[in-house]
């Protein structure tokens, strides 16, 4: 099993979700996150007080799939989340040791 962890631009979430739906991904977890990469944040000004905001809002998407399926998922995210400008985000793929469905106790691929 693989964990696909993608950090994307918040306004791209809907497109990514649709693209994953199209290739029949069964489930995913989304959280609001903040971070920075090459996109170095922005400046905010409140009544003349300037603040450099290094951390910009992002969406973190997590999906666990069978080994053979991971490549298609990565491809779908990369296509749907891309705008071509800096700050589009990154995708990481990690090995997953075990999965358990809490309701039934099913293990690993059966639990996905």
């Amino acid at each position, binding site marked *: 099993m693989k964990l696909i962890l993608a950090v994307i631009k918040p306004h791209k979430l809907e497109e990514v979700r649709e693209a994953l739906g199209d290739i029949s991904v069964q489930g995913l977890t989304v959280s609001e996150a903040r971070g920075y990469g090459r996109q170095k944040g922005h400046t905010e000004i409140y009544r003349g*007080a300037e603040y450099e905001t290094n951390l910009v809002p992002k969406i973190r998407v997590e999906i666990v799939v069978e080994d053979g399926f991971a490549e298609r998922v990565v491809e779908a995210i990369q296509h749907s989340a891309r705008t071509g400008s800096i700050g589009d985000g990154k995708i990481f793929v990690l090995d997953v040791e075990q999965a358990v469905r809490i309701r039934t106790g099913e293990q690993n691929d059966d639990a996905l």
Partner: protein
Amino acid sequence: MKLVSNLCRGAAGVTLAAFAAMPAWAQAAATAAPTVNKGDTAWMMTSTVLVLMMIVPGLALFYGGLVRSKNMLSVMTQVGAVCALAMLIWVGWGYSMAFGDGGNAVIASFSKVFLKGVSSSTTAATFTTGVAIPEYVFVCFQMTFAAITVALVLGSVVERMKFSAVMIFAAIWLTIVYFPIAHMVWGSNGYFLTKGALDFAGGTVVHINSGVSALVACLILGKRIGYPHEPMPPHSLTMTGIGTGLLWVGWFGFNAGSALEANGSAALAMMNTFVGTAAGGLVWMLVEKLMGHKASALGFCSGLVVGLVAVTPAAGNSGPLGAIGLCSVAAVVCYFAVTKLKPALGYDDALDTFGVHGVGGMVGAIGTGIVYSAALGGPAGDSWPGIGKQLIVQLETVGTTIVWAAVGTTIAIYVAKALTGLRVSRETEFEGLDIGEHGERAYNY
């Protein structure tokens, strides 16, 4: 409200007694006694609660949105609590000190302490001879002015002052700063009024007074830990925006209510409270743009409040074009006071009470001496001595208020310091005053 106060006490009681003794004389007296106008009374009751709405929730949200989320409740609680305290002190001795019988140019007397002698049949004069409103309505209307002014002062000291210190400061400050200045500006024998100062709805009493007091208070209290190096962005400009809207709507009670009647003077004040404020909001954003920044939401809100502040003394003392000009100038001056003067001098007036209310109040008070002129569309009559002489009176009023507020605030803050320690502990300041001072959190997700 430049000319209040000829309060006709006990009119009904007196005339009834007189009726029994000598009917003919009593009847003549009854026709001369001021009559309560129901339309004016209805408008003044409405105005009074509109001013309350400016404080809770208006000012509470306006200020609350500007602090960090860990201090939201402390700001709302402080604003609400000093507002409530001011109401009790007002009926205790405030009304008497400001509007009691007799006294001198600085304070009235203590003849109406705990509203002694005030009843549902006593009346307060309006600006029209023979027309009155119930005295209770006048007491309540003026009560809300005291309440909002003391709440405004707190804007500079938020996020670090103890709740107990806030309450003690408020009680002393109202007594030695607010009541005397209110008397000087509005009492029939008040120092500024007899000099001929123009202050329609309290630019001096409310705004210069609160702004200067806020500056002095924050200088004595000291900066917030981390200021100005650490980012302290407003936690919710949405709430600040809602608060701004409530302030604007409520301000019609404040300004148009200061006519004390539902008449043309109130209508003029209403007009100016629309257009002067609108000009302030737009001009602030324009200055932001000209300074190379983006036109911001907070800038718009700040400009609107500056417009409201500047139009306060001018509301019934200026034509609409004069108000637009005055508020535009005030927005430019306040923009630089807030964004340049404050950082240059390094004081931590956290929510810019001095920059907005103090500076805006001064521009408004001085400018009122100019826009009053009939040549600029103002309501000045032929007997008016002219811009030059009026400006001297206005400047003297502003100067006296600044000195009085500064000295009184220094005393009030040091008494609060001696009794409470004034400032929260370092831990509480880091953790936030919501948990540290009130044991609650504004947002539980």
